[in-house]
């Protein structure tokens, strides 16, 4: 069996398992974890557009996530807007915010500028969310956010909302993965990558760094807003905790531990995060986050490309057995001195 066939088979099998997964699990609680894995995989993929594709860093992604959650929640809870429209509105709002911020902040694609600006803006958004009672519910947030209506009853089989929400999230995740895959191999995706690789060279062959970076950034924030909106409707409440640095670190963990610059990385990272988080449920919040911080640091130090690329290269080594593979040690060294964080793989 060739590698390509093996890959396709593996993908189809994974997809099949993913679709029937809720039936395989026994408790609603476990099914909820599946939903969370999907939602945070989407969030991780959106952050990876900024980190992996653009090679930049935005601290504001937690804020984008939170704004998406809040927008949809406020519209559906306070103004009776149907949930689906609320989600679309959340996407629109975050797209607009991302576009404005990108247009303003990405003129010179210096490394730290975006990071600092988004850090400050994220803090400001958090402040606003905590203080603006009448709109956001202040410190307590908004409760009883409606879930999307799933009235599907196919021949007497009534689908419970946990199942339905999971398939919704899974569908969005699959579409997202496909879209990013196509984006990577498109003219726009190549333009963005060329800017990340060598901005001056990209300019000299006709790529406008500002234009393409703004596009990529806008897409990333819109996607983050979508993930946030789904999160809010799934949980049934939103609060300022969704905007905080904790979420940012979680998303970072998902991207870096899973593997930046690959499609499977954030998905794997999200799965790893939620499964680990469940195991550590018994510990208090601080201990869990302490461990997550440790995992993040350890990942940066020891496994800079993340788990997924390492697995992928192990898999291809198993199936292809390329003759000119460098030795394990030299690979390890190469991985550590050149931090493959911002290298985009297919």
């Amino acid at each position, binding site marked *: 069996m060739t590698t390509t066939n093996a890959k396709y088979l593996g993908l189809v099998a994974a997809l099949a398992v993913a679709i029937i997964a809720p039936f395989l699990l026994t408790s609603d609680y476990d099914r909820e974890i599946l939903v969370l894995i999907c939602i945070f995989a989407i969030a991780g993929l959106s952050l990876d557009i900024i980190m992996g594709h653009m090679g930049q860093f935005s601290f504001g992604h937690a804020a984008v996530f939170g704004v998406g959650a809040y927008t949809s929640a406020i519209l559906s809870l306070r103004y009776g807007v149907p949930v689906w429209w609320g989600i679309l509105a959340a996407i629109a709002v975050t797209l607009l915010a991302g576009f404005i911020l990108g247009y303003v902040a990405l003129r010179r694609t210096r490394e730290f500028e975006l990071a600092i600006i988004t850090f400050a803006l994220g803090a400001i958004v958090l402040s606003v969310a905590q203080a603006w009672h009448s709109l956001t519910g202040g410190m307590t947030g908004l409760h009883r956010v409606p879930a999307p209506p799933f009235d599907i009853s196919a021949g007497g089989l009534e689908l419970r909302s946990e199942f339905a929400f999971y398939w919704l999230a899974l569908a969005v995740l699959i579409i997202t993965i496909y879209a990013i895959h196509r984006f990577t191999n498109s003219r726009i995706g190549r333009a963005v*990558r060329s800017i990340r690789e060598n901005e001056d060279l990209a300019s000299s062959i006709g790529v406008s760094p500002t234009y393409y970076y703004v596009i990529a950034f806008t897409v990333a924030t819109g996607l983050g807003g979508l993930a946030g909106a789904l999160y809010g409707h799934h949980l049934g409440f939103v609060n300022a905790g969704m905007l905080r640095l904790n979420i940012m670190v979680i998303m970072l963990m998902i991207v870096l531990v899973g593997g930046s610059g690959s499609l499977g990385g954030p998905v794997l990272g999200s799965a790893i995060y939620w499964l680990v988080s469940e195991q550590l449920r018994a510990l208090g919040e601080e201990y869990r986050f302490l461990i997550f911080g440790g995992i993040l640091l350890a990942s940066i130090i020891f496994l800079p490309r993340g788990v997924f690329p390492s697995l992928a290269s192990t898999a291809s080594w198993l199936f292809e057995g390329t003759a000119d593979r460098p030795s394990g040690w030299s690979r390890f060294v190469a991985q550590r001195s050149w931090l493959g964080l911002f290298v985009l793989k297919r």
Partner: protein
Amino acid sequence: MPILELTNLIKDFGGLRALDNVNLSVEKGEIFGLIGPNGSGKTTLLNVITGFLPPTAGDVLYKGQSIAGLKPFQIAKEKLIRTFQITSVFTNLTVEENILHASHLKTNSTIWGSLFTTPGYRREERQLQERVTELLAFTGLEDKRNSSAANLGAGEQRDLEMAVALAADPEMMLLDEPAAGMTAEEQAKLMRLIETVRDRGITVMVIEHNMKVIMGICTRIMCLNFGAKIAEGSAEEIASNEAVISAYLGGKRGA
């Protein structure tokens, strides 16, 4: 009408005048050489022409239109393509990917095309692949197609840089010291390459120190010193020009 024309071009950096009233015109189809000692302003001139630096005064006319003050990517869109003094390629991509990424100006598939892999998109992808093959053959990099650009030798990286510049479909190319550090064999190959490029209808301006290369291929040559033109003419005229000789051999060097 000359394809590139500089009129009274001045570039100041604070109190330092790097380009002093430079007048230059390049005819279509020429290979034009720009020489001068280190620090005479050659690369500054290139940077001003291609939009990486704004001129202080004067004008840059490309195909009759002023391009002064435009951004680099806009100038590239006009098919005026440059290379860099320090060999610049997309280091972390493969050779094939380098050329694919550099073909930006030659492609125009939309996001819809790529999202739904329309026939138009697929046709363009096939054409891109053919183009890659052609450019690799042209620069002699066929068997390096899937190698990472970082793993290429210095000469091969230079070839790749050339392929990348050609991928952007230039009408005119500005080469910044393409022969630096090359062996005699590589120089000869470079000279043939540039002449073939010219034969395809692309105008070339070469900045170089290497006299053998300059004298070998350029129809006209201009010499700069201290940011000002000190001589212009054919290879023989330049070689015997007193001002040029003293600029290179004796007298005070430029800053």
